[in-house]
């Protein structure tokens, strides 16, 4: 019996959720709260450019951000499906959420992976 695609979708959702849970609080705090408020000196352009110079860093950033996009798509799809009882729109919601996530991942690839 052919099994559904759901396990793979759930695995990516899970990975994205863990990435966001472990990385985002520190990133957001430092870059968007502490630095703009002057609590710490913001990383200079030179520092970050040197960091993003390594292709491994850019690939890593692409993979992690894409996982987070798909985490949102999967979770938001189910929230709309169950939260607003939009069962008749199931196909549409799936196409839109995963479609947007794919688009965002493609944009990330374009911005980060093209030298």
């Amino acid at each position, binding site marked *: *019996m052919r099994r*559904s695609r759901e*396990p*793979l979708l759930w*695995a990516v959702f899970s990975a994205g959720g863990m990435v966001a849970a472990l990385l985002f609080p520190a990133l957001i705090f430092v870059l968007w709260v502490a630095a703009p408020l002057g609590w710490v000196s913001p990383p200079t352009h030179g520092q970050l450019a040197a960091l993003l110079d390594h292709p491994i860093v850019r690939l890593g950033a692409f993979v992690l951000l894409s996982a987070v996009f798909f985490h949102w798509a999967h979770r938001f799809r189910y929230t709309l499906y*169950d939260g607003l009882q939009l069962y008749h729109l199931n196909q549409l919601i799936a196409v839109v959420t995963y479609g947007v996530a794919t688009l965002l991942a493609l944009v990330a690839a374009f911005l980060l992976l093209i030298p």
Partner: protein
Amino acid sequence: MDSVTLEVQRYRPEDEEAPSWQSYRVPFRADWMVLDALNYIKDELDGTLSYRWACRMGVCGSCGMTVNGEPTLTCATYLKDQPAGPIRVEPLRGFPVIRDLVGDLTDFLEKLKRVQPWLVREDEPPLSAGEHLQTPEQLAEYKQYSMCINCMLCYAACPIYELEPDFIGPAAIALAQRYNLDSRDQGAARRMDVLSQHDGIWSCTFVGECSAVCPKNVDPAGAIQRYKVAAAADALTSVFRPWR
């Protein structure tokens, strides 16, 4: 003597299109459960009230109802623990109501059968080989999931089950796990085919209410999430096992 009001949902399909409420004034005793109050109603006030109960001590799973909005075993819910004011008693959510406080549980029974909740063997050792031996650690693996009394409080608590009646539900999955994790069982693959479907474990969004209301600490939510991890790992590694 102190008394308390029970507002009980009535539904008499021969007379009404939709449920209605009926209030009863019941003695308030410190050691009475909601079930005792219902039995008082049935014995003294209104013999037409229909509801299920049996052991009155929390092991048979018959007396599950919604008390003040929460699914609970009425034989294990004290009157004195309820907030002041009338106590609302309704049937368990998620199941069609046959009459008064009695719901139809056929759906669950069908789903339970689907997960094959028995020891599945691919090979049967001869009788001369003796019994299957199991260590205490092996027993501990699945013991928690064997405590399920099929009371259906988890189904009543699960919003997904009420929204999507095809969802196989928490207890069925927990009971499937009870056998999957049993060292004597060899049927994990068969159950995976049934459970790793949209109506199986993947409808679950880990609300977690099922585990919160379970009177036996089965933790069906934990069983489902563990199963998701196993199913995802199985799906990912099946790429390397095309014969499966």
